[in-house]
């Protein structure tokens, strides 16, 4: 079974926000919840790099490990999803996740977090049928339609890749070898004062 993965090529990411907005608009994600964010380091300085981050659908997901009510599960194709009906909003998954993927609306009484929301790889709630409630709770189920996630599909520079991990890896490896290393890599002349 193909495992689904994201990979953001930082040599291509220009922090345009296309992925962020594509997800927000396409899935009607409410204000305050950011399934996908672009993180930029060294802004305004040489060495500025950007990367688009959302749930990485980890092979050994820490969020699944810590969830006390087993609200989070992983599909056969590797996509990690949460069941909003089961989630109790304890926040453990947020603490466990190295990427800060779990988000909480924080709109319950006494400031309680509410059900966790995160990137679904545009797979909705994993049910094969596109039910009525699914889009409202989880957003589009594009995987069931045979379509790719909106963020990667709409990436301005094709920095963000999403899909079968083997193919994504192959693609990225091709790119890296094309960019060259050693004497072919750009910047070689600057680095070695040629």
């Amino acid at each position, binding site marked *: 079974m193909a495992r*689904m993965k994201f990979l953001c090529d930082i040599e291509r990411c*220009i922090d*345009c926000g296309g992925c962020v*907005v594509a997800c927000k608009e396409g899935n009607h994600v409410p204000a305050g919840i950011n399934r996908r964010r672009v993180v930029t380091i060294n802004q*305004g300085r040489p060495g500025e790099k950007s990367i688009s981050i959302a749930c990485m659908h980890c092979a050994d997901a820490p969020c699944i490990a810590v969830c006390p009510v087993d609200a989070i599960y992983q599909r056969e194709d590797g996509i990690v999803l949460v069941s909003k009906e089961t989630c109790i909003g304890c926040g453990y998954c947020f603490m466990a996740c190295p990427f800060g993927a779990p988000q909480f609306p924080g709109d319950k009484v006494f400031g309680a977090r509410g059900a966790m929301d995160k990137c679904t790889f545009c797979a909705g709630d994993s049910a094969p*049928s596109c039910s009525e409630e699914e889009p409202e709770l989880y957003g589009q189920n594009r995987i069931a339609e045979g379509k790719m996630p*909106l963020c990667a*599909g709409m990436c301005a520079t094709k920095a963000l890749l999403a899909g*079968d991990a083997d*193919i994504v890896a192959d693609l990225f490896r091709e790119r890296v070898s094309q960019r060259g290393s050693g004497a072919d890599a750009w910047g070689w002349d600057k680095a070695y004062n040629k």
Partner: protein
Amino acid sequence: MIRSRITGKPDCGSGSPARRKTLNPEIARRSFLKLCAATAALTGAAMTGKMTGKARAVPNGQQEAHPGSRMIRSVCTHCAVACGINAEVLNGVWIRQEIARDHPVSKGGYCCRGASAIAMVTSEKRLKNPLKKVNGRWQKISWDQAFDEICAKLSDIRKKDGPDALHLNGSAKVSTEMAYLLRKFAAFWGSNNIDHQAGIRHSTTEAGVANTWGYGAMTNSLNDIRHAKSMIFIGSNVAEASPVSMQHILHAKEVNNAPLIVVDPRFTKLAAKATDHVRIRPGTDCAFILGLVNVIIKNDWHDKEFIRTRVEGFPEIAEEAAHYTPEEVEVITAIPAAEVVRIAKVLADNRPTSLSWCMGNTRQHIGNSISRSFCILQLVLGNMGKSGGGTNIFDSHDNIQGATDMGVLSHSLPAYYGLADGSWQHWCRIWEVEYDWIVSRFKGKDEMNKNGFTLARWHAGVPQKKKMAPNTPIKALIQWGSGSKSLTRSHEVKKALDMLDLLVVVDPFPTMTAATCDCNNIYLLPGSSQYETSGSVTSTSRQIQWRARIVGPVHDCRDDYAIMEGLVKRLGFADKFYKNIRQVPEDITRELGRGSLAIGYNGQTPERIKKHMENWHTFNIDTLQAIGGPCDGEYYGLPWPCWTDEHPGTPILYDISKTLAEGGLPFRNRFGNETNIGIRDNGMKTSESTEGGQINGKAKVVSELADDQTIFPPYHLDGRFMGRSLAENYLEGSMPYVADNPANSDTNYGHDITTQVQGTEDGL
């Protein structure tokens, strides 16, 4: 399906032997084959890409989210990259944007603006009804009342003060057909007081470039940059302004190992991807370029054959450039002398070079000279008329090219014909109206041949503090898809707005103008967005695309054509105006095509362009030529000049390796923490200009700028003005989410001497 999307191969095929072993081969193979078979069936159908067609019936394992929906193709309205849009429509409602994977330029990509194109239609902040400001409050009125009152006032003003008392701020965001109608309206009304956003952006470029070799537009195309062996961007931050174009720029960088040189006072997002960032003192671009030219000539790196056969005036340039030694350039520009020499060598060693510039240099008081110097550099290097070379000036607005081409300008009729008698006679023939009748519409025969007020300077025409030409004070202003935010000296603009007898704003949103102007008798007419109408649009690569109407005008909005009709009918020249226009907008396309021979707009008939929209997938990404299919041999968008309805378009200007009929073209004769100034990070800072303007805002100390004496304020903001909030002036619910002062209250005097483009980028 996922597979084909990533690799672009149309056929899934069987599992390739090069695939790695997966964890569980048994299950992997079975599910894989199932997915594959389903994918093949789906992709086979999907790749025919019909413009409108039902979503395909899907085989096992695939679901249809919206049975019965249609796909309609349009083009994003935010910038001139002009990314394709696949809009899914169900029961007359635009339900979602799909990935426009086949579009030859964007390949499905968007920046944050394009990704939310649908929000232009769904936004709650849209103007919903015609409004009039009465006693300081916005009142809903009917369209008929609006049209009646506006036209009555216009006729009144015309009788008292003549036709030049009206200024028409036209638009770079309307369709080409609408831009043409706006110009025609100004002509039939009897004034040359019409201009659009080019007058505050790229008109210096045109003056400079057109005066060098004939046309003032991007010479190659975005896709063609893929073939560049080096790229230099001066005063241009396309990573933020035209993000999707970075696909092609980064391709050249990665595949050709092309140096990417960025010349900018700031370390911009584009600089972050550059191989070389050159910090330059604002306002000194000309010196830098001439410095490069000097180094090139001194080292004999110039393209002698190219200069011998195609360039005139070289000795004079060499003489002028000789003044700009690297040491002299260092004094002027703050770029080290050694760096000037090094950059010149990089360009000389890696040809062809694609040279691009944007607002960084056009908006200076010597903007048109700077544009000329860029052209000169490219001629000296021999980079013109070649794939991978060119002066690739990135347009800003989605249809600034189309609107400029259609003459929404104070100094020209459509298609750059100018304002001479012969030009007027040409257009009168196309419009099929009597030349004498048009003359009679103007204040006098002289006014017909003289330039009107530009967008940057119309506000000076209101109070007329100093004697100026044209000398009728402006009493009425129609802002159609245009705002006042980008004009300098906003406090003067506001004074002018407050003095008007009539102000009409046609826009999908209530604009800054509507909030800043304090008087009554302002009319806001809710125009529809470009997704709610149809028409053609010209991208920065001179490609013409057709926007099909996605959904009907929402709320009580009307599209531009309907609003124009409402006005023209009541102004008494509707019969003449619409003489040859029945089907809108296609008949308009045909009419403007008949007349725009100078730039070859006559070959792009609605039928041909629509066919291009239906067949995106047949166009090759590297050459932009269709291989096979109904558009076989044509270049995407039939880039102008497209001389006949069988011509394939001209993808690269001035390319003499091809015949004219194949898309070639010769040059044309033109008988263009704590800093020293006391700013604390996140502190509120008030800054005042020498002209009395004032802005305040939170300051962010960044390392992007060259030193702690340089500031870069963002300028396209509304909601606050001269330090105070404008919240009470906005119709309830329409105040922008992000509110701040536009920096233009703080800019100085200074306009380009040829085109009057304001100097925003070289202030002290």
